[in-house]
């Protein structure tokens, strides 16, 4: 299994199962089915439309599983729409061979802005062991995806913000510690922001971008009091990635390519 995406699919499916059985996730089977089927069908239609050589479900599966984990609605149609939106954004919002938005982030961002659906940032609870579970699973993915740099840049900056805030406010360490032990945070860092298709090509710029997303997220969470700060931070900063790639290009060979380049 050379392709790291299989590992991602495996980890996401495992997390979904864990959330379902152990944490009583608010995602009925019908919702999961709607998201997966619509995502895969949208990918198939998109592949035909874009005349890509072969239909490859892996990327669509990753987006769909991430949506299952994060997005909540009491209306299956909305979940289905979100899944189609995620995949469509890959085909329609593109620049220089890369899609601009992480598909899951795009769909969730749009759904949150319209108020049609919601995410439950605290659904994972804050027990340490579940954080460890995440970390180890995520580590597995990263070792294969070789994009640990942006995830670590983001995470360390965000943790820095949490600690600095606690220090400034004179809060007990229990507060930043609790904020760190968040499944949503790790999921975001390791499965969303580190998407190779939507991060800057050059490593130094990628790291700087990770820092930027963390700063924007910190601002939205602690100054604007937006509980969906992480999603919005990536959503609103994604459009500058094509600009960064243009200002700081890398040679074509060094651009990240999956084993079988598809959409």
């Amino acid at each position, binding site marked *: 299994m050379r392709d790291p995406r299989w590992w991602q699919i495996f980890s996401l499916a495992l997390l979904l199962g864990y959330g379902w059985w152990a944490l009583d996730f608010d995602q*009925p089977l019908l919702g999961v089915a709607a998201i997966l089927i619509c995502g895969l069908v949208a990918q198939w239609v998109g592949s035909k439309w874009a005349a890509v050589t072969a239909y490859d479900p892996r990327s669509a599966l990753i987006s769909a599983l991430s949506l299952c984990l994060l997005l*909540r609605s*009491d209306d299956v149609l909305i979940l289905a729409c979100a899944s189609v939106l995620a995949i469509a954004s890959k085909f329609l919002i593109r620049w220089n061979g890369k899609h601009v938005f992480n598909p899951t982030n795009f769909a969730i961002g749009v759904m949150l802005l319209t108020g049609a659906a919601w995410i439950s940032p*605290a659904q994972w609870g804050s027990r340490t062991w579940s954080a460890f579970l995440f970390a180890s699973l995520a580590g597995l993915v990263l070792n294969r995806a070789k994009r640990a740099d942006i995830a670590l840049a983001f995470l360390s900056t965000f943790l820095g913000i949490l600690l600095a805030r606690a220090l400034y*406010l*004179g*809060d*007990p360490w229990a507060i930043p510690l609790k*904020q760190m032990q968040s499944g949503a945070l790790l999921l975001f860092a390791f499965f969303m922001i580190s998407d190779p298709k939507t991060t800057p090509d050059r490593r130094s710029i990628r790291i700087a971008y990770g820092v930027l997303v963390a700063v924007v997220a910190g601002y939205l969470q602690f100054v604007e009091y937006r*509980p969906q700060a992480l999603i919005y931070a990536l959503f609103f900063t994604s459009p500058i990635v094509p600009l960064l790639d243009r200002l700081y290009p890398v040679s074509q060979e060094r651009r990240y390519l999956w084993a079988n380049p598809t959409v």
Partner: protein
Amino acid sequence: MQMPMALIVLAASVLAAAPPASAFCGFYVAKADAKLFNRSSKVVVARKDERTVVTMASDYQGDPKEFALIVPVPTVVSRDQIRITENSLIDQLDAFTAPRLVEYFDHDPCAYQTAAGSNFGLLYAMGVAARDAALLPPARRAEALGIKIEAQYTVGEYDILILSAKQSDGLSTWLTEEGYRIPAGAAPVLGSYIKQGMKFFVAKVNLKERDRLGFQYLRPIQVTYDTHKFMLPIRLGTVNADGAQDMVVLLLTANGRVETTNYRTQRIPSNVALPSFAKEEFGSIYKAVFDTQVQKDGMKAVYLEYAWNVAWCDPCAADPIPNDKLAELGAFWLANPSPAPSAGPAGIQRVPGRTMLTRAGNAFITRLHVRYDAQNFPEDLMFQETADTTTFQGRYVLHHPFKGPVSCSNGEEYRKLLGIRRTLEAEGLARLTGWELPAIADKMKKASQPIEARPGQP
């Protein structure tokens, strides 16, 4: 014939989402034990867009001279943003949303005709969020300590101060000098709020006004402000608190269910069949259910006990609350709805299956119950409103066996099933409450509902 898979899935999810919609024509039996949960408080939060209305109930029983309340608020509040309301309104909302016990009576297994009746017990939690006392506040010393008295009002029986401060030491010194008993360890928490730009709402009882108004109890204080921060400050209450406290937060919103974003919100176990002695002991049973759940989750979660549109209920633990009363509880968007041309006066309509409010406005109630202490809940409660309009209630079910003579072949079958059902009920109760199975069996026996159904006696 086999059902296709998709159909089975659909049916299962529908069942999971909605309570069984059997015909409820029934009556209501209240069993409202006050103070079921010790050291508990009740807050109503209504919010639409940025406007937030917080109503704090108090069942403070001590000397009113000794009563004071200190609440961090996100903005300076003006005189007309403070109201005094009635405990009865909050109690009504509390009763309406409380976990409920539903009774069903088995039909004659030998008859085709059905006849169902039902009644419900309920319980609720209430409490006080009291701080300690004060004398009169002069402003000069305040300035020296970096405290600004932003505003000062007498509203109803309360004297109210809105304070802003530069630093926590100054604030706690001033409060102490003014006679407020600030718990040791409060200064850092006050400091954190000061740095987050919060103001402080301080209320104490104006004895003269109280005597003039003639109230023997303290009425709830309601504060309105516009803020991004959809939150409830709980940290001051946990400083120096001896053990955990309970809080019931009743949230009124325009669209859907509310949940906490920094602590997991989970549903309280619901729709469980209980042995019939539960009717007499429902209060202590629900308390045990809650205790057990909190223990199981390591006191890390916030529990959803009720989520429903205000317009109707099924079964109803209390009558639906009309718009004007909800508006008084803070749901300001219901205050003056444009009346539909054909509609008559607002009222309550009972149809088989549900009790509905005619001409109801659009509002959703969420009831959250949290047990918290400083260790497990270091942060204030942060909320978000979701688009979720799925109904949920803490609902426990009693099935009473048919009492008449049973002399058909169905009757034998019925008796057998009854035995199985009782065992399941006992096990369900044991699982929910952590009570020992033999003790439950003993109680069932005393209630003439032994676990093994004896032949000839259902």
